[in-house]
């Protein structure tokens, strides 16, 4: 995976599989502090302590289609290679919080990549989930909450093509792209 945004997409699917109804993705991308800090937090089924220690092991997976699970190990390795870290807190029936940090100017730090496509893809995956997304840099702070948008949309679904196309442009403007 050559984009941080792809790792974020991959990790957020774990929250969807954990039956979360709300997923928060917060990214702080700062040249001044020289970090990229990512928090993915959900209110899904959570994991017990034993499972939390297991998920960083590539030979642990909940899938039955194959015997390896690479999502979290890949992200962890990627963060640690830059001198950063990955940390998971989880509680059964409460949810899971995953925090990762990259050292921004490290040569092994991947590009952020297309974070807009990542968020759009998640909303397309399951429109019932409320997504909160924040992207903070040294000079801008973009926040969006699909819960607010759904209230305005009423019975029109969040993953209707017209809405997704609008959202893409809305995010582009907000992120100054």
């Amino acid at each position, binding site marked *: 995976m050559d984009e941080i945004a792809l790792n974020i997409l*991959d990790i957020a*699917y774990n929250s969807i599989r954990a039956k979360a109804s709300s997923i928060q993705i917060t990214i702080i991308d700062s040249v001044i502090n020289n970090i990229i800090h990512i928090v993915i937090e959900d209110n899904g089924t959570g994991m017990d302590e034993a499972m939390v220690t297991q998920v960083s092991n590539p030979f642990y997976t909940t899938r039955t289609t194959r015997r390896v699970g690479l999502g979290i190990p890949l992200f962890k390795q990627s963060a640690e290679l830059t001198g950063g870290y990955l940390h998971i807190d989880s509680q059964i029936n409460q949810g899971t919080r995953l925090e990762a940090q990259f050292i921004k100017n490290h040569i092994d730090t991947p590009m952020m990549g297309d974070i807009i496509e990542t968020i759009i*893809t998640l909303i397309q995956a399951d429109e019932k989930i409320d997504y909160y997304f924040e992207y903070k840099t040294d000079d801008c702070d973009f926040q969006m909450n699909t819960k607010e948008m759904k209230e305005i949309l009423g019975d029109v679904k969040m993953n209707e093509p017209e809405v997704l196309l609008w959202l893409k442009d809305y995010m582009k403007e907000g992120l100054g792209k």
Partner: protein
Amino acid sequence: MKSLEDLKKIREAAQNKMTMRMDDEQKYRVVVGMATCGIAAGARPVLNAIVEEVAKAKLPVTVLQTGCIGMCTLEPIVEVFDRDEHKTTYVLVDAKKAKDIVLRHLMHDEVIDEYTVGKYKK
């Protein structure tokens, strides 16, 4: 400048035009594998290309995401189901092939043999 107010217009337009389609009117169901293997192989641009092309052409097609389909080396994988649940499995798909699949299969009902799993598993 775009603002959340725009959503009101989208809502009204959608309600007036009755663009919302019922699932049982759908002609095809397209499923894209979006597990770690799929994502690493490039499934995100494939999915988004299909969603966008289907939206632009207003096709009666549902696009869904799924986990690992079980043939990780052949990802990105796109499965197309017709109304009778007949499945066509396209493998090693990229954004360009995805657009071909929309144009030829979803719009003109033509199975693109050279992209299918049968071609690679012989």
